[in-house]
């Protein structure tokens, strides 16, 4: 949970079994690029034949997918279920879902189009809430480096920006791209900056996404016995390096893209986020909030 609070993302490599991946790919009619004429026709076919249902926004996740369909099996995986319950609760609702398909270079050459990556953005719109949504990603096939898997920027989730208004940041230090084995699941905080890469391989790249909303406060959903206790203050700057690493080191992690000044605000926002996630409204890490809350006038 501290890792999610700090970076805004979690990954579970090869979580979904081979059989379910195969069922998912069969269900959407996965085929060679040579047999896919146009992006539109490809989507039309999938929409016409696959078991992926049309889900009205606000439908409970529990009622969203047909029983025993590949997606039903994925959401019943105990790790997926546990992660979703921990982040958005067991009564989460579906905002939307989409099967993202990234076509390889060959397709763009045939269609005489310029093949460009997707610019960096934050999904949806300006979101100043304390509540957060999650976006769950499922990769049914292997994603190699050249397939241009989703690019993301760890630690950007608490920066409040307006969707594509971050598109001018072509490259950001510390940027990562998803490279994974089939069956990998990724979970992003809804504020995480990201964009789709370019697919320079010979194969079609798929990514199935579901955005989930909580219906309850996201406080200790990950700790049903409510045992979490914040760690006591530790020495600052003149520190004791012999001490073991704690979750406070995860919460206080810096990211290479952060400005020297704003990096401190990023830490403050992680502590504020951790207060919400733990319900300890006065807790602090490394005195960032205690110092500025010591207002005597």
């Amino acid at each position, binding site marked *: 949970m501290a890792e999610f609070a700090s970076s805004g993302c979690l990954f579970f490599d090869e979580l979904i079994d081979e059989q379910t991946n195969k069922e998912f790919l069969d269900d959407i009619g996965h085929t060679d690029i040579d047999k896919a004429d146009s992006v539109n026709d490809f989507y039309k076919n999938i929409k016409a034949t696959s078991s992926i249902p049309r889900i009205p926004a606000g439908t409970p996740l529990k009622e969203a997918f047909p029983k025993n369909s590949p997606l039903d099996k994925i959401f019943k995986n105990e790790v997926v279920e546990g992660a979703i319950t921990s982040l958005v609760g067991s009564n989460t609702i579906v905002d939307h879902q989409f099967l993202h398909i990234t076509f390889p270079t060959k397709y763009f050459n045939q269609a005489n189009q*310029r093949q*460009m*990556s*997707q*610019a*960096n953005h934050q999904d949806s719109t300006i979101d100043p809430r304390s509540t957060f949504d999650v976006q769950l990603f499922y990769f049914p096939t292997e994603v190699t480096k050249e397939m*241009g898997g989703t*690019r993301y920027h760890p630690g950007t989730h*608490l*920066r*409040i*920006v307006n969707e594509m*208004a*971050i*598109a*001018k*940041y*072509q*490259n*950001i*230090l510390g*940027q990562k*791209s998803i490279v994974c084995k089939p069956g990998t699941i990724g979970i992003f905080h809804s504020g995480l900056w990201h*964009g789709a*890469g*370019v697919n320079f391989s010979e194969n079609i790249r798929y990514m199935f996404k579901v955005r989930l909303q909580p219906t309850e406060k996201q406080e200790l959903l990950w700790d049903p016995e409510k045992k979490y206790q914040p760690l006591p203050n530790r020495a600052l700057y003149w520190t004791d390096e012999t001490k073991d690493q704690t979750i406070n080191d995860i919460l206080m992690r810096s990211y*290479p*893209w*952060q*400005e*020297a*000044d*704003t990096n401190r*605000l*990023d830490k*403050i*926002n992680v502590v*504020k986020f951790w207060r919400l996630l733990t319900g300890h409204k006065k807790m602090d890490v490394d005195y960032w909030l205690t110092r500025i809350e010591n207002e005597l006038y």
Partner: protein
Amino acid sequence: MAKRQKVLVLYLKFPSLEAEVISWATFDGTGKKLHMTGDSDTPPYPTGLDALLDGWRLFQASQAIPEQPGEEYRTSYLKHEFFFEKLEEGDF
């Protein structure tokens, strides 16, 4: 001979050209190279000053705007933005 503009945008760690580059974008008006999002993991220069030393001309820098009262801890866009250009002559 015609002239074309190449634009380099650098985001720095703090608002001085000595500071390290944390984000960058290049737009090539000569058409020789198509830059796009995510096309490089290493900054073109370690600092803003290194871009000047390589002949880039600074034409815009972000101003220091005081944080709005009550919103001092809100974080948003990258703050220290510097726009550079190079003009290239040729037959385009």
